[in-house]
């Protein structure tokens, strides 16, 4: 009887080890190299890091340099980033993302657009401050007040020149 039990324990251990060793060859913690490519499905945190935060910074840097063509482009990109994020994640933790974005950034984005068209830096700075406040208000509404956005004090893009080329 004890031999049978020992054999079964050994067999079970072998199966377990074999399964694990097989997994380590075919699949790592990052996935399986032989798997079919999965649809790319970034969630809100990744979308914010990819589409919103860098564009917010680039818009600020362009406006600070009074590079209005670049600011206009960065503004369009930022607005499109919000559209893409809201379409990809229309509800986050149950909350209506398009409505939150609208409440947080619609008015400041319109003010920035006007400032860029007028090439009026003071209005740009004020509107950009309101945009940043909107970001933080939205983070607070979604229980992420610890993610604090600010007007950038330096460029995070050493490979891009934000100054106007005359």
């Amino acid at each position, binding site marked *: 009887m004890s031999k049978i039990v020992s054999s079964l324990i050994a067999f079970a251990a072998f199966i377990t080890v074999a399964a694990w060793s097989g*997994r380590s060859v075919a699949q790592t913690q990052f996935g399986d190299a032989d798997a079919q490519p999965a649809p790319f499905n*970034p*969630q809100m945190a990744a979308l914010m890091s990819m589409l919103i935060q860098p564009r917010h910074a680039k818009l600020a840097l362009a406006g600070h340099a009074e590079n209005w063509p670049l600011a206009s482009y960065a503004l369009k990109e930022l607005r499109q980033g919000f559209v893409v994020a809201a379409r990809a994640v229309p509800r986050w933790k149950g909350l209506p993302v398009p409505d939150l974005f609208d409440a947080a950034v619609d008015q400041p984005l319109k003010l920035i657009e006007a400032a860029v068209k007028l090439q009026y830096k003071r209005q740009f700075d004020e509107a950009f401050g309101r945009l940043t406040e909107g970001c933080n208000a939205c983070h607070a509404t979604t229980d992420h007040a610890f993610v604090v956005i600010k007007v950038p004090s330096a460029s995070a893009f050493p490979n891009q020149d934000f100054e106007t080329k005359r």
Partner: protein
Amino acid sequence: MKFAMRLTATAAAMVLACGLSAAWAGGAGFGDDDDDSDEAGPSYFGFVRDSSGATVPNAKVTVSLKNRISIVTRTDALGTYKVPGFGRETDPKDIEVSCDKEGYKQLRVVRRSSPSTDPKIPVETECTLQRI
């Protein structure tokens, strides 16, 4: 013998569990956000706006369960309010929302109907104020 069978079953379960967790880890999501929502009935959420459609921060919002209890809160900087669920057994139809702010009167309260039955989606009610 029964003990031996149980051991084999346990081993098989371990192998299966390892396989399933590996499959789970290989999901298609990227940067999945944390989800700490509870399921104590739907929560209540909404905007308070003025008659022009602009959101109204710091408005008083009262969410009441008919003839029983009321929760009073205020809208945040974005003009939204959130109130946790009253429990699974509470019918959202029995919940009334009203809003108030000095210098305003309540114009209308509109409940937004969602096609989803996901319990994580709050009951949304928009309250509109008009300047007096």
